[in-house]
């Protein structure tokens, strides 16, 4: 407001009527600090709606939230291995890998650059275990053994992919296979997968809550 200075010292540049306060009134104090983060409320808020409809939608919301965590759309970054590579890594296929996508979108509707390998859930097919037939015979010399070991490693990687393709074709098999616990029988072990605990999780949880002693 570019107000013109009053002529006399006692004259104010604005008419006191227009602003609604008299001459002698004390003005409210000016603010020195920002307003408080949680100012006290003058009026209590109105209570929430209640009723059957509200309860149903509440239940729906919580259900949706819980189930969306289990869908393949919930993407978690693969944990980077900080330690030495362990033997049990080979059998822990439940972990997500960055370069696979867990569901199969319609690639014709998406740009080609987004195409990524689709990871089918590994269904164990008891009858066809091609790995058993692939065991190479004992090699004579050490070098040959090493070479064969390397080859076997590569074969296993490629056969994993072959396995997946076979399983894609075997999708129409009766659903009895699905009932098999995947974790129970994988590859060549006789052990239940959940018994494998390579100790990575120990101590990884946050230790903020130091109330309880850790034995």
């Amino acid at each position, binding site marked *: *407001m*570019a*107000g*013109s200075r009053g002529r006399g010292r006692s004259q104010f*540049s*604005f*008419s006191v*009527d*227009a*602003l*609604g*306060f008299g001459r002698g009134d004390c003005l409210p104090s000016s603010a020195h600090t920002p307003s408080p983060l949680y100012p006290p409320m*003058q*009026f209590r*808020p*109105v209570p*929430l*709606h209640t009723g059957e*409809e*509200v309860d*149903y*939608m*509440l239940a*729906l*919301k*919580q259900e*949706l*939230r819980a*189930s*969306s965590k289990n*869908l393949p*759309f*919930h*993407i*978690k*970054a693969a944990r980077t291995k900080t330690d030495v590579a362990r033997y049990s890594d080979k059998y822990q296929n439940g972990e997500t890998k*960055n*370069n696979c*996508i867990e569901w199969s*979108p*319609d690639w*014709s*509707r*998406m*740009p*080609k*650059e*987004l195409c*990524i390998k689709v990871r089918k859930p590994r269904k164990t097919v008891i009858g066809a275990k091609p790995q058993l037939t692939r065991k190479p015979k004992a090699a004579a010399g050490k070098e040959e053994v090493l070479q064969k070991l390397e080859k076997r490693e590569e074969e296993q990687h490629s056969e994993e992919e072959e396995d997946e393709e076979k399983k894609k074709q075997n999708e129409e098999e009766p659903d009895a296979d699905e009932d098999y616990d995947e974790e129970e029988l994988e590859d060549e072990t006789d052990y239940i997968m959940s018994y494998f605990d390579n100790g990575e999780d120990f101590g990884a949880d946050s230790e903020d*809550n130091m109330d309880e002693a850790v034995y």
Partner: protein
Amino acid sequence: MTAQEVRLCGLLLQEHFGDVVEKVGTHLIRSGVLTLRALAHETKLPLDLVKKSLCVLMQHGMCAFGAGRRGPAGPVEYHIICEHILHMLRYPRYIYTAKSLYGDTGELIVEEILQRGQMTMSSTVKTVADRLTHNMPEGQSMDYSEVVSAFSRLVETHFLQRCPPMASAGSSSSEAVNTPLPVWSTRMVYIVPVKIELMHKCQGKRRRSSEDGEAEQRAAKKTKTDNSERGDEGIYWQVNFQRFHLHFRDQAIISAVSCKLDQTSSEIVRTMLRMSEVTTPAHAAFTQALSANEIFRALPFSYNIARPILDQYLTLLVNDPMEFVGRTGDSGGGMYVVNLHRALANLARATLESVVQERFGSRSARIFRLLLRKRHLEQKQVEDFAMVPAKEAKDMLYTLLSENLVQLQEIPKTPDYAPSRTFYLYTVNQLPTARLLLQHCYKTVGNLIERRLYETKENKRLLEKSQQIEAILASLQATGAEAAQLTEVEEMITAPERQQLESLQHHINKLDSSENQVDETIFLLESYINSTQR
């Protein structure tokens, strides 16, 4: 995109799809349009994770791609559609509406499609039928044809729509230019494909379900892409949010009429809206004109209203200051329309007034309403009209001014804006105030979500323990354990812990239902603002 909207989108993405998608999504919202490489570089995430996140977002219709700035030869650019992310707040309301209109079957269909983004009809039908069969008592199984008929009804009333075909982008763009795309008419958006073969697994035999209409058969044969076993590969369905919003808007108008007037008037308005559902375009300011004769014939049977009484009710509705119904002519006993945009504006105005009343008291609300009606008023006039003493009026006006709900308009008498020779008028503009309140609502929902996450995090240990114990109890019950064992396991949670769990659950429920309630206000304000933009 405002800061509050971006924050809320980030929180919603994180809740449903995890941290990775949240990071990618918020960065893409802030940047506008980006290519894949740029996005990966700027978010410093591995390329594969970015690809996966974009796939998820595109599956749910929240991200779209298009030819980049360098034309079809350059890399594809992606952008986020923010409204679809914000619609995630409203998913429970959509599902509940489907349930109230089409029963459990409709509810599950809409829920499946909402969770998966886009689905083919056959996979939806199969999943829903399996779910329903699972919940039924032993021996019964859900008939596929029932689910198919529910699906068709949803499509006919436009609650579900077909996803538009994508032009193939990326490296094959040159081919796309040469081959002409099939003609995509809006008519085909709501046609259910004919002759889908569905494996009826429960009975172990194949079933052929055929729909009606020969004309549709011909159209569907053109759109059927390839012959796979299901017959409808490539035809994806998504939820038509706009149709749901129209339905919510109608519901809001009807409930407002029933609150303000009475049940019978709301039935009349409901009949009028139902009759003009198909003829009114989405963004029309008012419905098609309906004659009083037509309304009389279309009223539901249970409402035995005589013709002159109907005329009286219509006159009452027309004369009501809320202006829901207007009279546009005299033929056919009087032509009446429902004023949609004006109804929305009045509903938004009522929301604003109620907000002021609840936050600042009824006298401030009186001043606010006064300013809304009289547009511009001086300080003195405000005191006189509102019948509030001068000091308090000044106080309230300055509080409202500091909250930006009221604006000051200066009208100078002289060109030098001297304060003694300038009029200072207080005014309220409805549209900017509505936008301001909408941003407040977004911030509120963001705060509610953050508080809920904080509460959950604080009690994480307790929640995990209770989940484990529930799992143990469930497995024990499944194997048939004695009551003593069950009580022993239950006692592993101590009484104060149980109390803590209960209060935590109570808080989370309260926060969740607050979110739902704020979302209703968001919907009203958004509809009002969108109606003014056309």
